């Protein structure tokens, strides 16, 4: 059955779009929403309610639609819970209702409605308590299965998303008359303006209201205004763009839907949606108002629709939601719906007006067309057939609005158009701290205060007159607004707020969660009489339409039941976003490989070509080892570490954090951030030190060199380098008395470590002018030098216990020097070594890796590094905390040697004193580093152990589930404790 009107509507009848809904083929036109196309095809049943599985039809034509929730699309490009009113039709669209089993029309869940008394507000809290087992096994799964609308798509998203940043003088939200006027006025003198409109075309309510502006049809004014805006180079008009979040600093998030209206864009690179981050000097909100339904018995039938929505379907989409309508209203607005229905020959049975004295002129106009207005009446019951509503029962309403009286009159109808007044859309204003007040005359909450940078115009400000909306828009846009054009519009009239109508049938407040007026009364009876408690207990306004239709009605009923005035109640906090946003749109391009950058060293391609196995460390891709063909990673690590002890190794240390500290007070600054003294360090010398947190635990260690009296350079491990740089910058900012700059130069300097007894030979070939003898170039010194012809710097430092030189050259020359070192070292058996071998070599020497070998309690004393703490030098970060640390029970760094030298302890393993105790067993500490040492031919481990140093020689145990490993506590230096190998 077609319900498409023969003419009119903002649809392109020259093209047909085919779509599939609930397994049936239908046709629509460009310009249709899925909802309007369903109306045009005479589809009245679109969903089932959540709790009682009652049949439901379309209520609205906009974002407040609670019933028509569909899974749209298929496979990895499908989206659950889409409101049909917000889905633009495209050819080939597939939509499946989210509810109904086995079918939408014949839903087994209807049995729930028969015993609806059991499911009143709060029922889950009172029931299913018999036993935890039954709850877990039976009731909870059943309850969970009944909840929720859509389902998660079964594959990764097939679409892309992106983001854009924009700045503007004025952001105008809403493309209706007030928003257009604001944008027009704001941009007149060249200001940069962004106009964001959620709809596919601008005009707002003018798209379905018959109005005139400046003596012409209002839509002509809309077109002229848009054309004028498009001529202004500083104006950006974004359609299909919803501003979803606003922050107090004037930043806004707006979601632009770029391809949803075109259908799946397979093979296209156009992102599905774009998230705009807009910084605005001023924000004009012109988001309009949303019509509110009335709460009366039987108000949830298919065919009960908001009067404004009926008008929109008829005028904007030329789709007729039903014939022989009854119009139920408490204000003037719905009379336009009645007239529009008459205009298209749909028939109006009666207008039922809650007001005892509707304007005579409206009553007379309808009387002329043969339509009776039942003033002071209300609908007290509805009847429905398979296709939806078939009739209503009407009775008179008492003067105070709380009772119905007099004879009942039954009217047959095919549509019930309802208007309960209009709620200004204040969500964005409330997100930035706007407050509301109750406007008794218009029966709605309007904003009373907003932050200075926000102005409100039109319906969202409670201004329902078109003329006044234009005036507000123009004034919000400019301090010197142009004159307001003349308009033709009806008077708005008065509103009679009646929050609930008594009757036997259930009167629904929240159609999405099936909360009824009786549920509110019950919740209040049980003490849930604060709006926030009511919302939670009776589950109102928590659905996907975010309370747009339910909230004010719920407050109205709450006010009636409790006797509190609406002014003393307030809508619950507005939570962003205004419209739900896909997680994919939030992540934008930061998915897959782009979720976080991979930092690559200048020699990365060489490592890859050499067959390196990589490990990620703080975003850096570092070679773990370079296995030869047929070699395992473990074997490669052994071979590489032995090469360092016997010959010479080459390691890419580019990811090490490099930090320059400059300024006259650089030394004093470092004295305050390190536990030892740095201001006395000679130029050209290097020093090792520890940085602490304010709580006295080790933040990181680092090696620094003094390059000039006012210039130091620090090198810190990759894992903590970002944290350390942040910490140093914070300190520099916190101590304005110190003249110092901290700069991150990590990616300015490639860093190549030559280490092993033959490294002097290799470096000698690379830097023939450099004296490399132990006296000429002592340990812990640094010199400028050209290496392989590249000017750079050489430091005599390493992390392996062997003779070592660290070569720093500009990042871009890293590969050249690396290649030269390989060639120069070929004769000496140079071996590239990865992180794995470095970890073995340093563990053999007991060098700590902060993070791994420390935790947030570990102090320098716990590490046995008391020599690095100079308590005599003045204050430093963490000092006062260190002074408090007591000696007993501290977890100290120790070495562990397993009884069976072949067994390698797992890192993280907990250590106990007692081998066979039953839990709970006191934990003495844990293994922090553990590996097999090929040099020593046995396993070694480092651990943090309570009173560890005093336990040297004792046994500890690591229970590992099926087995327990026993180890002997040892000194944490396993190899060359005297440091003889350092000088080669």
């Amino acid at each position: 059955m077609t319900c498409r009107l023969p003419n009119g509507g903002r649809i392109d009848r020259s093209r047909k779009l085919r779509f599939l809904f609930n397994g049936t083929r239908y046709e629509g036109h460009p310009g249709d929403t899925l909802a309007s196309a369903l109306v045009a095809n005479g589809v009245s049943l679109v969903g089932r309610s959540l709790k009682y599985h009652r049949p439901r039809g379309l209520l609205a034509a906009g974002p407040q639609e609670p019933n028509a929730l569909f899974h749209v699309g298929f496979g990895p490009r499908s989206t659950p819970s889409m409101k049909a009113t917000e889905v633009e039709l495209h050819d080939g669209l597939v939509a499946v209702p989210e509810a109904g089993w086995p079918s939408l029309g014949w839903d087994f869940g209807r049995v729930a409605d028969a015993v609806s008394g059991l499911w009143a507000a709060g029922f889950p809290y009172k029931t299913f308590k018999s036993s935890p087992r039954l709850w877990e096994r039976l009731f909870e799964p059943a309850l969970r299965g009944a909840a929720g609308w859509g389902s998660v798509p079964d594959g990764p998203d097939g679409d892309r998303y992106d983001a854009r940043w924009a700045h503007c003088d004025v952001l105008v939200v809403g493309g209706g008359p007030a928003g257009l006027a604001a944008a027009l006025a704001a941009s007149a003198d060249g200001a940069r303006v962004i106009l964001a409109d959620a709809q596919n075309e601008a005009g707002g309510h003018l798209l379905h209201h018959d109005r005139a502006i400046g003596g012409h049809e209002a839509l002509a004014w809309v077109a002229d205004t848009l054309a004028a805006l498009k001529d202004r180079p500083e104006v950006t008009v974004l359609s299909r763009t919803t501003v979803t979040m606003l922050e107090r600093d004037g930043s806004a998030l707006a979601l632009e839907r770029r391809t949803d209206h075109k259908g799946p864009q397979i093979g296209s690179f156009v992102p599905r949606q774009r998230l705009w981050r807009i910084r605005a000097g001023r924000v004009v909100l012109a988001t309009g108002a949303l019509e509110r339904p009335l709460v009366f018995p039987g108000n949830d039938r298919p065919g009960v629709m908001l009067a404004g929505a009926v008008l929109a379907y008829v005028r904007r989409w030329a789709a007729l939601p039903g014939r022989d309508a009854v119009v139920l209203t408490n204000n003037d607005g719905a009379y336009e719906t009645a007239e529009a229905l008459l205009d298209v020959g749909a028939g109006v049975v009666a207008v039922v007006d809650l007001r005892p004295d509707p304007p005579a002129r409206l009553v007379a106009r309808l009387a002329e067309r043969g339509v009776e207005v039942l003033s002071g009446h209300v609908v007290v019951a509805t009847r429905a057939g398979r296709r939806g509503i078939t009739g209503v029962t009407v009775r008179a309403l008492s003067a105070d609005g709380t009772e119905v009286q007099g004879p009942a009159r039954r009217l047959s109808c095919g549509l019930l158009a309802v208007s309960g007044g209009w709620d200004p859309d204040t969500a964005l204003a409330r997100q930035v701290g706007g407050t509301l007040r109750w406007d008794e005359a218009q029966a709605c909450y309007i904003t009373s205060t907003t932050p200075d940078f926000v102005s409100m115009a039109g319906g969202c400000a409670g201004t329902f007159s078109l003329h006044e909306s234009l005036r507000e828009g123009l004034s919000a846009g400019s301090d010197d607004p142009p004159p307001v054009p003349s308009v033709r519009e009806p008077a708005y009239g008065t509103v009679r707020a009646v929050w609930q109508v008594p009757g036997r049938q259930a009167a629904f407040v929240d159609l999405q969660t099936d909360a009824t007026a009786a549920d509110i009364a019950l919740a209040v009876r049980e003490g849930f009489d604060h709006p926030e408690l009511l919302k939670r207990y009776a589950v109102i306004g928590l659905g996907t339409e975010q309370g747009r239709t339910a909230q004010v009605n719920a407050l109205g009923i709450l006010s009636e039941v409790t006797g509190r005035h609406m002014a003393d109640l307030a809508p619950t906090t507005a939570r962003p976003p205004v419209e739900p946003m896909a997680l994919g749109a939030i992540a934008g391009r930061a998915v897959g490989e782009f979720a976080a950058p991979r930092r690559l060293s200048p020699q990365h391609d060489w490592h890859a070509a050499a067959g390196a196995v990589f490990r990620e460390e703080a975003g850096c891709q570092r070679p773990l080892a370079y296995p030869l063909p047929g070699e395992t990673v473990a074997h490669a690590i052994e071979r590489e570490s032995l090469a360092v002890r016997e010959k010479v190794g080459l390691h890419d240390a580019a990811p090490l954090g490099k930090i320059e500290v400059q300024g006259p007070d650089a030394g004093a600054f470092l004295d305050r951030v390190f536990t030892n003294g740095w201001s006395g360090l000679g130029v050209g010398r290097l020093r090792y030190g520890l940085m602490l947190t304010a709580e006295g635990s080790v933040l990181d260690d680092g090696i620094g060199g003094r390059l000039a009296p006012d210039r130091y350079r620090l090198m810190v491990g990759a894992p903590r380098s970002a944290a350390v740089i942040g910490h140093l910058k914070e300190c520099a900012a916190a101590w304005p008395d110190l003249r110092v700059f901290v700069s991150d130069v990590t990616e300015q300097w490639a860093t190549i470590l030559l280490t092993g007894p033959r490294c002097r030979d290799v470096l000698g070939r690379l830097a023939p002018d450099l004296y490399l003898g132990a006296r000429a170039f002592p340990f812990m010194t640094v010199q400028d030098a050209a290496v392989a012809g590249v000017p750079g710097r050489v430091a005599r430092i390493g992390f392996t216990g062997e003779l070592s030189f660290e070569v720093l050259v500009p990042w871009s020359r890293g590969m050249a020097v690396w290649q030269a070192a390989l060639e120069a070292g070929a004769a000496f058996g140079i071996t590239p070594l990865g992180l794995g071998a470095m970890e073995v070599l340093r563990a053999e020497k007991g060098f700590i890796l902060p993070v791994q070998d420390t935790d947030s309690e570990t102090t320098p004393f716990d590490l046995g590094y008391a020599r690095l703490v100079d308590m005599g030098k003045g204050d430093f970060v963490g000092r006062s905390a260190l002074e408090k640390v007591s000696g007993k029970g501290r977890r100290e760094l120790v070495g562990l040697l397993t009884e069976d030298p072949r067994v390698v302890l797992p890192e993280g393993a907990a250590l106990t004193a007692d081998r066979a105790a039953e839990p709970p067993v006191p934990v003495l500490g844990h293994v922090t580093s553990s590996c097999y040492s090929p040099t020593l031919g046995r396993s070694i481990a480092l651990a943090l152990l309570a009173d560890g140093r005093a336990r040297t020689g004792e046994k500890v145990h690591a229970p590992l589930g099926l087995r327990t490993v026993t180890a002997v506590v040892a000194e944490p230096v396993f190899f060359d404790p005297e440091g003889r190998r350092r000088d080669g």
Partner: protein
Amino acid sequence: MVRFSLVSLPREALRGHTGWPRQWRRAEPKRRYQAIIVGGGAHGLAAAWHLARDHGLRDVAVLEKGWLGGGNTARNTTIIRSNYLAAESVALYDRALTLWPGLTQALDYNVMFSPRGVLTVATSPDEVREVQRRVYANRLAGIDAEWLSPKEAQAFCPLLRIEGGRWPVLGAALQRRGGIARHDAVAWAYARAASALGVDIIEQCPVTALRLDGGRVTGVDTARGVIEADAVALSTAAGTAGLAAGLDLPLESHVLQAFVSEPVKPALDCVLMAGGLDAHVSQSAKGEFVFGLPVGEGFGVIEKAAAGILDLLPTLSRLRLLRQWHGVVDVTPDRSPILGPTPVGGLSLNCGWGTGGFKATPAAGEILAHAVATGRPHPLGAPFGLERFAAGALIDERAAAAVAGGVR
């Protein structure tokens, strides 16, 4: 109190639910009480119930500045687990975890405790080490902790992507007894049970100051007048520092955000935590995916978490964020709470829970009640006294406190 039973439920269903009384009495503040608990969140209400039930102390008032359970009780992401690192913390949180399954029966109120398992995935070698350290320590403490291979983790949580994303899953720890509960219901359940035992629950009654005399607390100033008491407990989260003026509380307040998706049919049957990716996720009984974030303000935090979540759960990309909110958490230097008596006579504290207070509710109430009734710390609460900061005996949970670890 009318018991929720197989007699009362059908009876009320048949007569339109007209016979249900208020779940907690509406009480007017008296001039004096034996004990006052400031803060009508789940912790404060639980303490009141324990005071009345365990200690027979029924001359008790709970003073709530707004609506019941309207602070962090209403805002948290409801995760319940006990797999902390330190033995003291494990004992505390596991006491709560042993009480959770019986809470519905004990309070005659379905709090919907759902032990669906808490899966903590590790996506970097450092995280593997850290998470395994906790697994080993938890086993020695005698609580359930399993280490799962990536494949086993995926079998437990089929939505989880273990390879092919930016961060491969290297393994996961699982505490099967952990799960979630219905946060609001927990507050209401304790309120109803405490009220039935005689506790006065007074909403819309902000406390403005403590009344002190000679090193002892004697009562509180409220917006509704002075109320005297022998003992006062503060259970006011981020409001504590302002009320306990005079005590040096090492608390920092931070903004913590969370958000939920639109409700969908059951798809995620466990709690998924990923500290390294700054997020945790569960699916509520209503079908919403509930996302917890690291502390911090602004949309940037959400954006970063979305990237991490989608790397692990790529099929959620088209699921839509429905509602986002924030609360203020009070964080201690060691990320462990402050719980028990104070140097001020009669004054007890319950604060500093950071991001992890909800899971501890049953134990926090029990321990706080003990302190209020006896003036001495409960054995499980003793290590968590305020004096530990002066003594340096911290209980460091920075790594195990999940997302709070991001606080520096």
